[in-house]
């Protein structure tokens, strides 16, 4: 209406200017006689002229108003209708305005109808495809749930895309309403050491680069300890995209805690039965043989040897007894080992250790046929430490790796030139405890080598002034079972793997695309509208959106004991009564769970300021702060449809074609809000609002943004 007034004023001004000009033209350079005549004429005709002027002005005003009513306003609404149509294909424009405009609206509606038909058709096809997809998915889910192993599918950032119930059972450490530690969109690094995963991925990348190894299926194995102390063996295989590039991985986990315990006991038993009895046997045998070889020895000597035999036989009996009772002196906590090609190990070492100051060369003496039994992660980490010390203390900038076969052993050689390394220094370095990755394991190089059943030797050649640190390792038989020819690249085709393309969530959240972020959409029911006056939350409902997909299963739905009586008015709205809240947990115990549920996501709510106010009221008491960004569907609706007056959740839902189900329960409203929010994302994009930062900025420009609770 402002624009209408302004246009009218301009028109009137223009008219006055024309009349003024007319007078000016009439009265300029005329004689005084003519002027008198003119003045008289004007004075005489003034009333009809004034009337005429009034009439003209009135006519202009009315004309302009009609023009607005019948042409301009309907056109402006029509353009909003076009936008609405893109969100809700059932939307039609109301016929209004002038004949031509009505005709246009008519054409628009015809077009909309054919658009809707097309849309429905496409929708039907999509649903058909989705059904097929869902079927595949269910088949996969059924298959996965039958597996004895736990399976996790993750993208390269370590975000979990898919998992089975076994995985939940194995990995869950806490039991509360907020669910388990794993869930779609959560990070796998919460349960498995990051360093290990990165290491395994590097190994797979390396295997894929080996052109001669097209026939084998790249994979990596490792063993790790979970937070709850269980030991699991992990088998990692890559997931490839259309361009055959690595974009994720599948982890199969197997609980081997019991196996490891049994293995360790068996190892320890074997150890004591070999090494310890060898010594005792040697003493007996030497004594017996000496006595037989020298039958003429004197009695005193003979008694001495008999005493040895007696003593050692008793020691032997005790050892066997101890072994039987399982009380071995050698705690054999052997780490589980993986089999690996020696060349792959060298490549891994080279990549891990090489830096700007240290160059790593491989020697010509690399035996490509060697397979080793290793914990490659621990070995590379601890060797990297050794190289770093050697390079630092002896000013060595170039080292060489060699790998060769020596009968049934492999020699892994690290050589460099310079002054000899004192034995004591080397021993100190070998025995320095290194935190491997997240610090769950503390290992020394010598322990790592011992764990591989290996030995290390330091050799110095004075003539060439070269040093060689040699690790002797047992050779493993090559794994023939791995040479399985892949007919086609094995890529699963049956799930929503869009998350693969999701960028990290913590860094530069504001630059994250709205369609790619993870959200927790929530709603609360309260005893009343005034948090400051003591009103309390009685219910929280929430669900998550990951990658523009609503995850209805992973929801949060909790009634809360408010510690005060409900008013009849509020009960009438939400249908919750005092009896239902009896025995429910208090907000102090629920907020931490909800906080965990919403971790690492953007919060979304309708009229978010209201719900946030209730959450913030509890900050001091519970110490729980919700610091993540918040989006408000109320404000976003104003951004999208500034000309619409109604921005209630119902009005928006109706406008956007979202079914309203289960309103006025916290979870029901959260679901409606989430569906509305999903519909809004493409509409926001039309307005040039793509990122979280864009959306938050646009929200702040709306008039409602200034309301505070």
């Amino acid at each position, binding site marked *: 209406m402002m624009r209408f007034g302004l246009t009218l004023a301009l028109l009137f001004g223009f008219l006055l200017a024309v009349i003024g000009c007319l007078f000016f033209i009439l009265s300029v350079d005329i004689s005084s006689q003519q002027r008198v005549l003119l003045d008289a004429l004007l004075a005489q005709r003034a009333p009809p002229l004034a009337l005429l002027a009034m009439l003209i002005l009135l006519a202009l005003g009315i004309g302009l108003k009609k023009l607005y009513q019948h042409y301009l306003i309907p056109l402006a609404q029509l353009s909003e209708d076009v936008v609405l149509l893109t969100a809700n294909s059932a939307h039609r424009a109301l016929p209004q305005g002038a004949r031509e405009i009505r005709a246009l609206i008519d054409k628009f509606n015809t077009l909309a109808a054919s658009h809707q038909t097309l849309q429905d058709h496409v929708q039907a096809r999509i649903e058909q495809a989705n059904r097929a997809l869902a079927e595949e998915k269910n088949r996969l889910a059924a298959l996965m749930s039958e597996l004895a192993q736990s399976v996790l599918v993750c993208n390269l950032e370590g975000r979990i895309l898919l998992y089975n119930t076994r995985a939940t059972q194995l990995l869950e450490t806490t039991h509360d309403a907020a669910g388990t530690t794993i869930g779609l969109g959560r990070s796998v690094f919460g349960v498995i050491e990051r360093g290990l995963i990165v290491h395994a991925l590097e190994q797979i990348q390396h295997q894929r680069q080996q052109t001669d190894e097209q026939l084998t299926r790249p994979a990596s194995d490792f063993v790790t300890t979970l937070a709850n102390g269980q030991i699991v063996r992990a088998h990692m295989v890559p997931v490839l995209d259309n361009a055959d590039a690595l974009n994720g991985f599948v982890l199969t986990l197997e609980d081997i805690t019991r196996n490891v315990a049994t293995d360790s006991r068996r190892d320890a038993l074997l150890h004591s039965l070999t090494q310890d009895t060898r*010594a005792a046997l040697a003493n007996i*045998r030497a004594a017996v043989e*000496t006595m037989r070889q020298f039958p003429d020895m004197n009695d005193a000597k003979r008694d001495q040897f008999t005493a040895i035999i007696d003593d050692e036989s008793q020691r032997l009996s005790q050892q066997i007894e101890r072994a039987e009772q399982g009380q071995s002196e050698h705690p054999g906590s052997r780490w589980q080992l993986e089999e690996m090609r020696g060349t792959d190990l060298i490549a891994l070492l080279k990549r891990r250790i090489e830096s700007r100051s240290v160059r790593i060369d491989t020697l010509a003496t690399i035996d490509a046929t060697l397979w080793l039994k290793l914990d490659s992660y621990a070995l590379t980490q601890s060797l990297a430490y050794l190289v770093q010390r050697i390079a630092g203390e002896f000013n060595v900038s170039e080292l060489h790796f060699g790998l060769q076969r020596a009968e049934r052993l492999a020699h892994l050689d690290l050589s460099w030139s310079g002054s000899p390394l004192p034995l004591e220094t080397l021993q100190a370095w070998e025995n320095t405890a290194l935190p491997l990755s997240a610090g769950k394991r503390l290992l020394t190089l010598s322990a790592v080598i011992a764990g591989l059943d290996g030995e290390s030797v330091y050799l110095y050649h004075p003539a060439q002034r070269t040093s060689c640190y*040699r690790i002797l390792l047992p050779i493993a038989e090559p794994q023939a079972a791995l040479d399985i020819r892949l007919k086609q690249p094995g890529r699963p085709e049956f799930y929503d793997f869009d998350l693969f393309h999701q960028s990290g969530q913590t860094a530069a959240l504001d630059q994250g695309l709205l369609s790619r972020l993870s959200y927790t959409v929530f709603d609360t029911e309260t005893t009343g509208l005034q948090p400051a006056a003591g009103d309390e939350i009685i219910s929280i409902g929430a669900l998550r959106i990951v990658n523009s997909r609503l995850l209805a299963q992973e929801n949060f739905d909790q009634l809360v004991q408010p510690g005060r009586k409900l008013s009849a008015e509020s009960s009438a709205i939400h249908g919750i009564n005092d009896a239902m809240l009896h025995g429910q947990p208090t907000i102090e115990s629920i907020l931490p769970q909800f906080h965990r549920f919403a971790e690492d996501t953007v919060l979304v709510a309708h009229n978010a300021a209201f719900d946030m106010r209730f959450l913030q009221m509890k900050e001091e008491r519970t110490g729980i702060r919700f610091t993540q960004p918040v989006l408000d569907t109320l404000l976003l609706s104003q951004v999208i449809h500034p000309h619409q007056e109604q921005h209630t959740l119902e009005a928006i839902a109706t406008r956007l074609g979202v079914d309203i189900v289960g309103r006025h329960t916290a979870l029901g409203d959260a679901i409606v809000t989430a569906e509305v929010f999903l519909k809004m994302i493409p509409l926001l994009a039309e307005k040039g609002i793509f990122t979280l930062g864009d959306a938050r900025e646009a929200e702040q420009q709306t008039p409602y943004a200034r309301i505070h609770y």
Partner: protein
Amino acid sequence: MSHKVLIVDDEPNIVISLEFLMQQSGYEVAIARDGEQALAQMVSFQPDLVLLDVMLPLRNGFEVCQKIRENSLWNRVKVVMLSAKGREIEVSKGLALGADAYITKPFSTKDLIAQVQRLLSDRA
């Protein structure tokens, strides 16, 4: 002049046999109970051959062997390692460090004496 043999072992039950056998074979014998003593005896006793156990207090047999090989004065000293650590990898390590022979326990005393005699006649 008879050859000198240094026996390095911390178990008296084997030392008694070894000492007797070496004396009967006509060698002059000295005993060391740990790694440090062994290195001290290398200087004071100046043996021609060392019977060296691996598991020793203070310094293990591998270290002692390495120290002996580091010193060019002891180039001609023969080292025979005697150990209950009988895995291939340990044998390999002993030989890599410069031991002339690595004998795993239990061993035949005849073979041991033959080995010692052979090594010392090589030297002469």
